[in-house]
C-alpha cells in the first residue's frame, strides 16, 4: 500500500514538473541502481572469505528467483506452488547447453549461458502457463501444485534429460574464455551472478512500469473490472506467468553455473516452497521485499543450518510469525515508517527507535527461552545417546536436570509478561508519531 503512495508520488512529480523534472527524475531513478551496482562491486572486498563469496552468490541467485516469483504473487496476485519448475528447467537447459558447448568446442563464453536458462524457463512458462492461467485463485494454485509434482516425478523417470538421482554435472571452466577469465574461482562466478542479478532486477523493475505491468496490478485488484476496460485477464496472467518463468530460468541458469550440477531437487516442491517463503517474508507488496527476503532466507539457510539441526523449525516459526504479525513482510514493516520519514519527524523516529529497543529486550528473553526449549527438547528426543549436556549461548546445559527447563520457562513466561507490558508503550509512541506526522502533512 505504501508502494502505491510512493509510486504515484513520483508520477505526480513528473506530470507537474515537465521536461526538466523528467531529466532530474532520471538521475533520481538511476541513483539507487548505481548505488546497488557499487555495493555489488565492493561486497567481496568487505567480505572476502570463501564462505562469504559462496553465500553472496547464492543470495544473488535467490534475489532473481524471488523477484520472478513476485511477478506472480505480488504483482498479479497468483499464488504458485510450483515456481521451481521453471527455475529447475532453466538450470537443466543451461547445464545441457554448457555440456554441448564444451563437447563440440563451440565459441560460446560462459556469461551468456543464463540466456539458455531464460529460454528454458520461458518455453515451459508458455507451455504450462497456457494450461494453468485459464484459472485464477485457488484453482490456479492447485494446478501449479499438480504441474510441480508432474515435473518433479518426471525428473526421476526421464533420466536422459534430468540425469536421475545424481543429476547432470558440468565444468564451467571449459567454455570459451573471455578477458582471460575461466570462472574457476568463486569470486569470478560471484561477479558473473552479480551482473546478471543487477540486469534481471533492472528488467523486472522496468517491467512493473509498463502498460502490461500496471494491468498486472489491475488484474490482481479486480480481474472483472479489467475486462470492462478492454483487457483479457487470462492474457495478462499468461504473459506474467511466462515472463516469471523466463526470470526464474535465469536464476536456474545461474545456479547451474554456480554449482556445476543440477539435480531433481531444483524442480522440487521444497525449492518451490523456499521461494514462496522468501518472497512472503520479505514482503510481496514492495519491489524491495523479495530482495530482502531472498537475502535473509539464504543467510538463515546457510547460518542456521551450521548452528542447529532443526533450523527448518526456526524457519517455519519465522514464517508463521510474519504471516501473523507482519502480513506485508519485512519491507511492509519498514515502509510503515515512510510517513514519518517523509514528514521529517526525526524526533518522533528517535523516540520510536527507543521504544522499539525497550520492547526488544523482553522479546529477546522470550526468544531465548523458546530456543532453549526447542534445542533441549530436540537433544533429549533425538540425541540423548550423546550424553545429557548441550552447549547453548556459550553455556553448558544439562537437559536432564530441572534447572535449565525452569530457567527456560521463566524466560518465556517473564519475557511474554514484560513484552505485554512494554508493547502499549511502543503502540502509544507510534500512534503519537503518526498523528503528528499527518498533522504536519496537512499543515503544509
Amino acid at each position, binding site marked *: *500500500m505504501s508502494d*502505491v*503512495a510512493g*509510486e*504515484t*508520488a*513520483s*508520477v*505526480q512529480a*513528473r*506530470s507537474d514538473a515537465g521536461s526538466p523534472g*523528467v531529466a532530474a527524475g532520471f538521475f533520481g531513478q538511476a541513483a539507487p541502481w548505481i548505488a546497488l551496482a557499487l555495493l555489488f562491486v565492493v561486497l567481496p572486498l568487505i567480505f572476502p572469505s570463501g564462505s562469504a563469496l559462496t553465500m553472496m552468490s547464492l543470495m544473488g541467485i535467490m534475489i532473481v528467483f524471488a523477484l520472478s516469483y513476485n511477478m506472480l504473487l505480488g504483482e498479479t496476485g497468483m499464488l504458485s506452488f510450483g515456481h521451481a519448475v521453471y527455475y529447475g528447467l532453466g538450470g537443466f537447459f543451461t547445464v545441457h547447453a554448457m555440456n554441448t558447448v564444451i563437447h563440440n568446442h563451440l565459441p560460446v563464453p560462459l556469461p551468456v549461458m543464463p540466456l539458455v536458462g531464460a529460454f528454458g524457463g520461458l518455453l515451459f512458462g508458455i507451455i504450462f502457463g497456457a494450461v494453468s492461467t485459464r484459472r485464477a485463485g485457488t484453482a490456479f494454485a492447485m494446478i501449479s501444485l499438480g504441474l510441480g509434482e508432474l515435473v518433479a516425478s518426471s525428473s526421476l523417470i526421464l533420466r536422459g534429460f534430468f540425469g536421475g538421482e545424481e543429476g547432470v554435472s558440468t565444468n564451467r571452466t571449459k567454455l570459451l574464455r573471455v578477458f582471460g577469465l575461466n570462472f574457476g574461482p568463486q569470486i569470478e562466478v560471484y561477479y558473473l551472478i552479480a551482473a546478471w542479478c543487477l540486469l534481471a532486477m533492472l528488467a523486472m523493475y*522496468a*517491467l512493473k*512500469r*509498463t*502498460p*502490461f*505491468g*500496471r*494491468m498486472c*496490478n*489491475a488484474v490482481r*485488484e*479486480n480481474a*472483472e*473490472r*479489467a*475486462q*470492462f*476496460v*478492454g*483487457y*483479457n485477464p487470462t*492474457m*495478462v496472467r499468461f*504473459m506474467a506467468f511466462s*515472463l516469471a518463468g523466463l526470470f526464474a530460468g535465469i536464476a536456474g541458469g545461474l545456479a547451474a553455473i554456480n554449482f556445476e550440477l543440477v539435480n531433481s531437487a531444483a524442480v522440487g516442491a521444497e525449492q518451490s516452497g523456499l521461494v514462496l517463503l522468501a518472497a512472503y517474508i520479505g514482503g510481496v507488496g514492495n519491489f524491495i521485499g523479495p530482495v530482502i527476503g531472498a537475502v535473509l532466507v539464504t543467510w538463515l539457510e546457510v547460518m542456521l543450518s551450521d548452528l542447529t539441526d532443526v533450523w527448518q523449525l526456526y524457519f517455519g516459526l519465522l514464517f508463521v510469525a510474519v504471516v501473523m504479525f507482519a502480513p506485508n513482510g519485512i519491507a511492509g514493516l519498514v515502509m510503515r515508517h515512510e510517513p514519518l520519514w517523509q514528514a521529517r519527524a526525526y524526533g518522533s523516529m528517535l523516540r520510536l527507535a527507543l521504544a522499539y529497543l525497550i520492547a526488544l529486550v523482553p522479546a529477546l528473553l522470550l526468544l531465548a527461552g523458546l530456543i532453549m526449549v526447542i534445542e533441549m527438547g530436540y537433544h533429549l528426543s533425538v540425541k540423548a545417546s550423546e550424553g545429557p549436556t548441550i552447549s547453548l549461548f556459550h553455556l553448558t546445559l544439562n537437559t536432564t536436570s530441572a534447572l535449565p527447563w525452569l530457567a527456560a520457562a521463566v524466560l518465556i513466561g517473564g519475557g511474554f509478561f514484560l513484552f505485554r507490558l512494554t508493547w502499549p508503550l511502543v503502540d502509544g509512541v507510534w500512534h503519537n508519531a503518526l498523528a503528528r506526522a499527518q498533522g504536519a502533512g496537512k499543515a503544509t
Partner: protein
Amino acid sequence: MTAAAIKLADVHKSFGATRIIRGVNLTVPAGQRHAIIGPNGAGKSTLFNLISGRLTPTSGKIELNGEDVTGLPPYQINRRGLSRSFQVTNIFPRLSVWENVRCAVLWSLGYRYAFWRGIDGLADVRVRTEHILAEIDLIDRRRVQAGVLTYAEQRALEIGITIAGGAGIILLDEPSAGMSVAEAARAVALIRRVSQGRTLIMIEHDMDVVFDLADRISVLVYGQIIASDVPAAIKQDRAVQTAYLGTAA
C-alpha cells in the same frame, strides 16, 4: 441510415428454470440518452450484464453498431466501443485514483499488453488521464488509494473509469444511487457533460434524475419492456403508472 448503437432482438435469459429476461426488444439510436426504469427484480441489471458481455443470453441477438456481439466476452465488447459502470462500486481498490483511471485509458490508446515501453513516458496516456480526473473532479485526490475515497468520490471514479476509454456507448447502472440530493445533482451534471455526443443507457431509480436526463425511457417489468417512449408520454402511460410509478405520480 446508420445502424443503431444498440439493438436487442428477442433476448432471453434464464437462470435454471427462472426466466429473468423474457424477450426484450430494444433499439437505441446513436447519440440518444436512454433510461431504463422498472421495479426491483425486473431484470434491469441483468439486461446490462447481457449487453456488456458479463452474461451470455439464453437466446436472442445483441448488436452493437450493427455488429453481432452476442456471447462475446466483456473485453471484446469493450474494445468495440461499449463501456459500463456498476451498481455496486467496482474499482481497483488498492491502486491510486490516478492508476485506476490510467488503467482504463491504456487499451483505447493502443498500448494493449505492451511490456517493452515505460508507462510514465507516455504523454497521451498522461494527458487523457489528467483530463478524465479533471472531468470527474478528482484531480486533487489522484494520489489517494481508491479504496479510501468517500462513497460519492468512488461513484465519480466509477464513472471516470467508464468514460476513460472514450467509448461511444456508455452504460451507467444507478449512477446516483445512495447519494445525497446535492451529490446526485453533481452526478447528473457530470453525466450530462460526459454523455455529450455519445450514446447513453442508464438504469436509474431517481425519477428526477431520469426525467431530467433522458431523451427516451423504457420501462422493464418482469423481464419485458412494457413501454418505451419520450419522458412526457411515459409519465402519462397508464400501464406504467400501475406497474411502477404509482397512481399518485
